């Protein structure tokens, strides 16, 4: 699926909930479906700074697409990462780089995050795009 379509799907999904509690419950269950990073890759170099909780993201490049696996020690953070990976994993570097992140505002996620978590979210997106950029420059 194209990034834009996945984002639309997520927006529809969140529109369905009418209070934050249900949204959080949904995020928590998304966290459980996160494609988990291999234990061996949980290294300092794959740790993303800027979160109160720890987040590891491991990138791979296969058949022209970037695949991410990840983990976090906090479950809500895991849900946020799962949401991001659903959008950005298994896409081409080019698509990842040109994708916008308006869907995050549209589902009202940021308003519901504490400032530290919102910072964490920004650093996560930055990190995913950095990996995409690295793979793209390998291609060129």
């Amino acid at each position, binding site marked *: 699926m194209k990034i834009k379509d996945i984002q639309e799907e997520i927006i529809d999904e969140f529109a369905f909930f009418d209070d934050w509690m249900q949204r959080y419950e949904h995020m*928590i269950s998304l966290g459980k479906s996160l494609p988990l990073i291999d234990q061996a890759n949980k290294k300092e170099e794959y740790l993303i700074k800027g979160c109160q909780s720890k987040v590891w993201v491991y990138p791979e490049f296969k058949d022209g697409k970037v695949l991410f696996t990840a983990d976090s020690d906090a479950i809500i953070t895991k849900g946020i990462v799962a949401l991001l990976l659903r959008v950005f994993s298994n896409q081409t570097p080019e698509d990842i780089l040109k994708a916008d992140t308006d869907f995050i505002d549209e589902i009202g996620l940021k308003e519901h995050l504490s400032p530290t978590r919102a910072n964490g979210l920004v650093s996560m997106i930055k990190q995913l795009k950095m990996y995409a950029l690295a793979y793209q420059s390998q291609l060129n």
Partner: protein
Amino acid sequence: MNTDSKSIAFDVEKIRKDFPILSRKVNGYPLVYLDNAATSQKPQVVIDALVDYYSNYNANIHRGVHSLSQEATDAYEQAREKIRSHFNIKKSREVIFTSGTTHAINIVASGFRSILQKGDELIVSALEHHSNIVPWQMLCEETGAVLKVLPMNDEGELELVEYINLLSNKTKLVFVNHISNALGTINPIEEIIEKAHKVGAAVLIDGAQACAHIKPDLQALNADFYTCSAHKMCGPTGVGILYGKEAWLVKLPPYQGGGEMIKEVTFEKTTYAELPHKFEAGTPNIADGIAFGAAIDYLNGIGFDAIANHENQLLAYATEKLLEIEGLKIYGTSAQKTSVISFNIEGIHPYDIGTIVDKLGIAVRTGHHCAQPIMDFYKIPGTVRASFAFYNTFHEIDVLVEAIKKAKQMLT
């Protein structure tokens, strides 16, 4: 400690009306503010003192001949006098206005640059806030002095036996907090001070947490330096004090150069002003200094015995109720502690709990509480910390406990 017990009945509902913020809602729920160790809320009288200053007698102080400047100077110096009297400090020249505890500690650390020599030893406790660690590490890097750590036990208490082993005639300075912000432990500072003085070392006590709960008598305590931040004791942000024994304050070089702190300036040589102005370069935080005085009056109006009594009851009640939750572990279990409860629930990240309870209108702190060494000691990433003030209620604790149960159910 001073005991100026007031026998007026403690009416928490009446007290709550003094704090406008306590009637607001957060995320659709009545605010339950349990992050008092980070900063306290402000009563109307403190807010009024700020507004009154800016509305009626705003002027620069210690400089002008005009009436307004005189009024402002008087009010500011009156605040210093209130602080002096509150802490039973001998002389008002020993009360240095600072921007808070961090600033106060930095003044002392910077002053010791010219006093310490390579190989001198400093002792820091394992329970310190980063504010009372980092300035000293910087000082050690510069001077070649060595930092020794006074360890803690599982209850979050300092190991005094180890302390005695660490002390020697090489020890020049010991710095310990009066009360730990992360765990709430009340440290045996009387003994720590006495033992340090026996080997000729000076002692700095970080009173940032303590001053909201107890009223220290600084002459009786006999610490060489004591610090506090107004914002944790119902006062405004951006102001606090450094208390120092006069002999030490005379000995330490000034921290910053500028206006206010000079006697005479020529391009050849500048002589410094007398205490306390030597350490108060530039236009001070006049409004907040005055409002700090108002906060001290307010707290004394309630009385520190009444405050401690109510807070201890809250602590006992909350400890009992929280421990009923399965898998909940409290960090900091000393018999000597104030109304701070740091905890985790097995298998759940503190951050997740903080996020869920916030949605229910409850403010708690999560994380390492600027005391990473303590978290490393317990091998945890952080805790959830609920810290109670005299304006908190038993009902609010019930709300907290229910919210935590709900969070636990959602997160497991």
